[in-house]
């Protein structure tokens, strides 16, 4: 193992900007150092495999079985029938639709607000640290805690937000209003994260370019759409991708706010209920695997759309 991996490590380090070391055979000392490096990495790699690869493979294996904790005697290999059951179920598609709505709407709002916040934070000269801290506070609050305060705020008789609505309205009990509240909670919570990632992207935009454009007579809007946004494309991709993947797996806010009642359940809620309430490991695992596949597809789609801007696919032939 050591020799091969040593060569592999050498191959990867070739891409470092070192100009001459690349082709020369490695000295004994360097080789030993590399080997030591690999040995030091090994525990982490093994742990990664144990805690991520094993559960994923086990979930796939479970999803191919009829396995209900309540009927242990009936456990058997079932092929793809669990997937058939999920994909032909109205509950799955209903939850899928709700999840897509929550994802698209919340990420869109977060992007606009996040960009605005990023621009503000980027431009702020006075009290920069304070501004950034204040903006980041919601992101620092535990989601479940925030969800509970939203729940109290929207509960009639107790909540200050519910009190602003007309008498007798209970917004968490209607489908549309409850979904709106879930989206609001999501947006409030994760806009700072979006803003932070976008602000990192803003740093990539050279000031000179903007000044030059201004001299050429480009307005603020033109500068935003023609210069800032295109230059930030990689940062936007990362921000949108992270948030979309996160939002697609939305669970905690829904779990606290509505428990998925009144048709507000996401696919993650559906998976939880089938696994932990119905004890149906086969169906529940099939749902989890489908969520995993959906997340992978979203990631793929993003990279296809943003194409060249995706991290790790640099087109300019630097390599």
């Amino acid at each position, binding site marked *: 193992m050591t020799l091969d991996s040593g060569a592999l490590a050498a191959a990867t380090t070739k891409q470092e900007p070192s100009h001459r070391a690349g082709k020369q055979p490695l000295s004994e000392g360097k080789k030993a150092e590399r080997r030591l490096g690999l040995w030091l990495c090994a525990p982490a790699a093994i742990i990664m495999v144990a805690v991520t690869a094993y559960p994923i493979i086990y979930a796939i294996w479970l999803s191919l079985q009829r396995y209900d904790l*309540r009927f242990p005697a009936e456990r058997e290999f079932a092929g793809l029938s669990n997937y058939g059951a999920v994909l032909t179920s109205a509950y799955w598609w209903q939850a899928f639709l709700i999840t897509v709505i929550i994802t698209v709407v919340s990420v869109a709002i977060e992007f606009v607000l996040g960009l605005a916040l990023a621009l503000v934070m980027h431009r702020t000269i006075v009290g920069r640290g304070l501004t950034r801290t204040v903006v980041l506070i919601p992101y620092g609050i535990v989601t479940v805690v925030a969800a509970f305060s939203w729940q109290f705020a929207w509960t009639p008789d107790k909540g200050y937000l519910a009190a602003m609505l007309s008498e007798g309205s*209970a917004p968490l009990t209607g489908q549309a209003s409850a979904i709106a509240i879930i989206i609001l909670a999501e947006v409030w919570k994760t806009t700072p994260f979006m803003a932070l990632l976008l602000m990192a992207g803003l740093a990539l935009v050279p000031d000179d370019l903007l000044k030059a454009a201004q001299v050429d007579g480009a307005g603020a809007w033109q500068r935003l759409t023609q210069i800032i946004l295109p230059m930030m494309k990689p940062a936007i991709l990362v921000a949108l991708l992270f948030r979309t993947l996160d939002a697609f797996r939305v669970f905690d806010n829904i779990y606290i706010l509505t428990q998925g009642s009144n048709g507000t359940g996401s696919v993650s809620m559906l998976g939880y209920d089938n696994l932990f309430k119905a004890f149906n490991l086969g169906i529940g695992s099939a749902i989890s695997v489908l969520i995993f596949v959906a997340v992978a597809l979203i990631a793929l789609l993003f990279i296809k759309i943003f194409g060249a801007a995706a991290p790790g696919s640099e087109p300019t032939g630097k390599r």
Partner: protein
Amino acid sequence: MGQPLGRRRQGRQGRGRFRTFAIGGAALLAAATIAGCGSAPAGPPVLNFYTPADGAKQYAAAAAACTQQSGGRYSIVQQTLPKSADDQRLQLARRLVAGDPSVDIMGIDVTWTAEFAEAGWLEKFPADQAAKVKEGTLAGPLDTGTWQGELWAAPLNTNTQILWYRKDLAPNPPATWDDMIAQSEALAAKGLPAAIEVQGAQYEGITVWFNTLLTSAGGQVVNENGDVLIDKGDAAVKAATIMQRVATAKGADPSLSVNKENDGRLAMEAGEAAFQLNYPFVYASINTPPPDGGGGGTFIDAQGKATSQDTGRRVIDEFAWAPYPSVIPGKPATVTIGGLNLGVSSTSLHKDLAFDAVQCLRDRDNQLVNAVDGGVPPTLEALYSDPAFQEKYPAWQAIKESLDNASVRPKTPAYQSISIVLSDALNPPGDIDPPVVVAGLAEQIRKAENSEGLVP
């Protein structure tokens, strides 16, 4: 790579410190392991008694008392599970599936018997122990611990709903649901408090409401063989129709579709309701001063409307109880019972002792403590004639009657899934289209019964 020497030296120092930590940590770990596993207590075997969080104090007291009474044969340690039934079930299931030998006695919900028995998590009561449990125990609660003719769990306490009403608004308490809805609408027409408070939120409570109406109308969801009977006859349509009418009647509580037991109690205490179907805790609550209870409820004026002025008359002065209204006139309602049963885990290392301990934990004294301090009615028939119990439960006669006519929830290992399907289909009650809902339910319950398909 400028100062490899310095760095290396630093590293060595660090490594030295790390080694000290590692050795210390390993020693600690080893000590913990020895303490955890190795130190078999010198005393009698320890029986772990897992109970819901509600009433944990009484259960712990019972555990201590029984440890005393065992004369050194065993000692019972009470362990508290979460508050919500779903979480309790999940925690127990996790331990049992993993074969945790430290689970000996479990307080389990009346609806879990079939599921836990079929999954192999419960130890069947041996004939002699079962005979002891059956002696003097009410038939309804006993039925909840029985599955396929065998006793799997011993009833500890039970619970049942009766009708609580305002005698100023309804001088003649309604005997049927039709009557109650008519009385409520008449009150609403006069602008008086009219609401019928019942559990309409999407949770176990709405399943209980439906099951009570269904069995009172002569129907059944499934039988013990797993045959789905919900669409046989017109009982289910009758039950669903009543639910829909209660939710849409003039004067109905607008938030019925999210109301649970406590919401009904609060509405009654706030003087907004005329009728309430609920458990006996509402009586204790209205007699408890705030903030823990309703403190007699709000003031009411001469007409019976809630008022903020001190009229000297409160809801409690008009608070009364009656038997649960029936669906078929003249035929008593069969109210769905709740409660807690005691089961012995199949993973226990001391099953014989655990069965003995169960007999002690549910004996007369402990049930009386549960009833008086914990607010849960007992399962031993004799206690209902005990003056201490009667004093605490002025409505004991109605409660006893209700228990004598009790119905149990569908007995099936798939109960949890069926309950989720039912509560999903019946909520919000105002939108029920009875024939359509019942037809759809039959199909979905059949699937849930066979653990096919998804639960919502």
